[in-house]
């Protein structure tokens, strides 16, 4: 466990020789009409890293993901992915939303096929890929169910297959398992962890659950309480891989990592709490 001294921006500058980071936030201000969500936020994520973003409610964690996705634009500053500035919807990204985002009028298989179809993959081929992905997330036999006829955990699995079938270089996840019960959550975390090891994607994972964050990530980024939220802390999680996500809390180093983040997070949570009271 070590704490990186300051937000690193390696690879963003024009004179740099290092490979471009997968994601770089460079002096981001994000102002909504009546709310200053983020102020002067900078950090970079090297390729292939699994980063969790934690912070109190309303600290602009989801906004960070939306900036990378290109769904919103910063008021000031610059977001780049793989060295290219983000302009409009970012084709390098896959996004797993907090809310149910499956198309309810499409069956599981049709939902998973959507990405390839939109990328002009022939139908038969798209179908084959989608079958394979559904099997991979453990949903063989559920291909022709509509989302309404699947459980919350099953819907999340479909959503995961739907996003991963596009093989995104950058995977954005906004509390994807937030609505699930603790056991299902641990199972989904495990699947995500395994799939991530296979895919080698860069992951930005927003969560409220610090235990989940430590169990899954290489690194945890702490965003301070809003308004005017910014980067508050940056921690490396040095646990062996592959991990058993459900048992990660028994691994050496887990507690130290957890405590280091929690000390700072608690302070921010208290600040938010005091402000909202």
């Amino acid at each position: 466990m070590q704490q990186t001294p300051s937000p690193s921006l390696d690879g963003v500058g024009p004179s740099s020789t290092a490979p471009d980071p997968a994601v770089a936030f460079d002096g981001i201000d994000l102002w909504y009409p009546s709310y200053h969500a983020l102020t002067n936020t900078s950090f970079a994520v090297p390729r292939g890293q699994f980063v969790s973003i934690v912070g109190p409610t309303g600290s602009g964690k989801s906004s960070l993901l939306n900036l990378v996705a290109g769904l919103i634009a910063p008021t000031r500053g610059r977001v780049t992915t793989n060295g290219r500035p983000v302009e409009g919807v970012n084709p390098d990204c896959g996004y797993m939303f907090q809310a149910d985002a499956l198309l309810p009028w499409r069956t599981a298989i049709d939902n998973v096929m959507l990405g390839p179809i939109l990328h002009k993959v022939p139908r038969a081929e798209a179908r084959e890929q989608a079958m394979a992905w559904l099997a991979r997330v453990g949903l063989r036999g559920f291909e022709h169910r509509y989302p309404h006829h699947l459980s919350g955990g099953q819907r999340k699995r479909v959503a995961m297959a739907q996003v991963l079938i596009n093989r995104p270089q950058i995977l954005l996840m906004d509390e994807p398992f937030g609505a699930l019960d603790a056991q299902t959550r641990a199972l989904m975390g495990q699947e995500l962890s395994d799939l991530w090891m296979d895919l080698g994607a860069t992951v930005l994972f927003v969560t409220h659950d610090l235990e989940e964050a430590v169990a899954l990530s290489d690194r945890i980024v702490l965003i301070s309480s809003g308004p005017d939220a910014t980067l508050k802390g940056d921690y490396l999680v040095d646990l062996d891989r592959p991990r058993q996500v459900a048992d990660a809390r028994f691994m050496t180093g887990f507690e130290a990592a957890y405590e280091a983040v929690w000390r700072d997070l608690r302070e921010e949570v208290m600040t938010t709490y005091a402000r909202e009271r």
Partner: protein
Amino acid sequence: MPANAEPAVATEPAERIPLSRRRWPVHTVQVLLVVALIALWWIGTAVGFVNPFFWSTPADVLARLGKWFGDGTILGNLLITLYEAGAAFLIGSISGVVLGFLLGMTDFWARVLHPIVSILNAVPRLVFAPIFFLIFGLGPSSKIAIAVTLIFFVVFFNAFQGVREVDPTVLANARMLGARSRYQVARRVLFPSALTWILSSLQVSVGFALIGVIVGEYLGSSQGLGYVIARSQGNLDTTGVMTGLLVLTIVAILVTIGIGRLERYLVRWKADRR
């Protein structure tokens, strides 16, 4: 949980479905009510407290039905009415869907045209009937025009609303998955999402198609079910009026059932409504 809580639960067996949810009792009572109403009509006219001059009698209506089916009165006029209603339904709902959909997708034109369409919708459409008679003559075209003015607005507002009410997360998801062009977004997200709204307006539209056409025929024509009813009325022939109404009712029921089936098929992805 204390053990003595068990019996309280057990007195209400799980398979006991409330009366209002069971199919057969509901249907049986429905049929019985209709039968009772006809019986009341029949007995009323037989005993004399219902005047057959105003209400005719079930027997007369049945006899007339047989006669008119035999001499082709019903079939010929029914076909005309169905043709007019069908044409009005197609023209009205297609134009409503297309315009509502396009307007829903373009912010600028939505803001410009939506209030104007709303005002037009507030005008009682049947006052246009004389104008349509002048423009289109007394043939089927004027009837179709009247019904179209009724149908268009219903479908238009539903299609418009359907596009506007699309779930923003689903939309964002489709865009992230690769729906870049307006066409892709419209085809993969907006249209299927709006389809529920559009379909629910079609039920109403079918009713409006029949109403518009019949009223048009009633006001001025020489063919169609509305004309049959109007002519019978002119001859003080209530049996004819009742027979016309009966045929019209049966047609309306069949068409409504058909549209309901279609709707259930097209929105089969929705959660079972119980």
